[in-house]
């Protein structure tokens, strides 16, 4: 990824102010499924904002990732309620079946597996999210079926 045009296309849509930075980083995230290093460098050049500042933003916001992410994101809620209702087992199952560690991305770039702390749906615990779709009362034995059904593979 060295072609700066792909970043410029996004940057051009915004005003040249520091307030635009976060929105641009979010657009990078949406477009590339992460915020590439070259993107941060280009953004720093065009906006004349120090690279260190933009990099810090990239590390601060949960919604931004500095490493490539999968096409699909699976979030296992490990908040208190979900933890008690069996989240650890769901997580282990996904780790085993997808051959990926928590907060990691599968080798084929298909899935990123994440833990989140309470998604505010404790009544449905344990909760698993596949690309922002909530699945309540998930069972470890069924979780792979849910994933497959939703992403259609």
């Amino acid at each position, binding site marked *: 990824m060295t072609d700066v045009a792909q970043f410029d296309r996004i940057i051009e849509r915004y005003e040249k102010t520091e307030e635009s930075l976060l929105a641009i980083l979010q657009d990078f995230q949406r477009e590339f499924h992460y915020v590439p290093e070259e993107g941060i460098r280009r953004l720093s050049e065009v906006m004349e904002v*120090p*690279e*260190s*500042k933009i*990099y*810090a933003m990239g590390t*601060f916001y949960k919604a931004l990732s500095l490493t490539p992410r999968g096409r699909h994101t699976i979030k296992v809620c490990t908040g208190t309620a979900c933890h008690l209702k069996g989240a650890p087992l769901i997580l282990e199952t996904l780790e085993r079946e997808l051959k990926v560690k928590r907060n990691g991305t599968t080798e084929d770039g298909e899935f990123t597996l994440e833990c989140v702390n309470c998604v505010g749906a404790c009544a449905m615990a344990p909760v698993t999210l596949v690309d922002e779709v909530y699945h309540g009362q998930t069972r470890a034995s069924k979780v792979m079926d849910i994933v497959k059904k939703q992403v259609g593979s």
Partner: protein
Amino acid sequence: MEKVNVTIDGRTFEAVKDKCVLEVAHENGIYIPSLCYNSEVTSSGGSCRVCLVEAHQGGRMRLVTACNYPVRKGLEVKTDTPLVRRIRRGVLELLMARVPDSEVIREMAAAEGLTEVRFREDTGENERYKCIACALCTNVCAEVVGVYAISMINRGADKKPATPYLKPSDVCIGCGACAYACPTGAITLKEKDGVRRIWGKDFPMVRCSVCGTPYIPEAQVDWIVKRTGKDRSFFDKCPDHR
């Protein structure tokens, strides 16, 4: 400059309005511990909390950080009450748990009669050893040096100063101001055979043409020349031999 009267520990002083309590106290020989504040750096302070004092004003009392609390007319400050002592010990105990390697904090804590920590001490992984994440280094680099080579990355317990991607910085000039300002000595600056190493990058030093001492990184000279238009030959000699 408007002057106001302010009382600290029962003594009344005349001070410039809006100057911070910490400076007024220090000017008058009253000790308040501090770590993250540097009077040369406007953006510093407010982070380590060891400078907490009682501020009495308009019949109300608040605990405030002396390093960024402005003196106003009628302000009364108490730096040595049982409450202040207790809170200060608490802050130091937490800092000590976080950075057990820091002698500065150990000494400060010992002065408050604190040698043991009730909390699990941090094992110092993640290179956090002595860093209390106060951001004085990044503030110095940005505000005083004007280079912005480092910033505070991550958040919560993982917050720390770093160069982008933890790689040797493209813009750092190796001036060492960050290491100099660090209150706990957490930033390593090494010098050997005319090369300075800081933030994982080597900086060849200019040697004084008289005494031969390597005294300033070449990159820093480049920076000053570019910024101020000063003549490069000015840096041939170290300050002692100019």
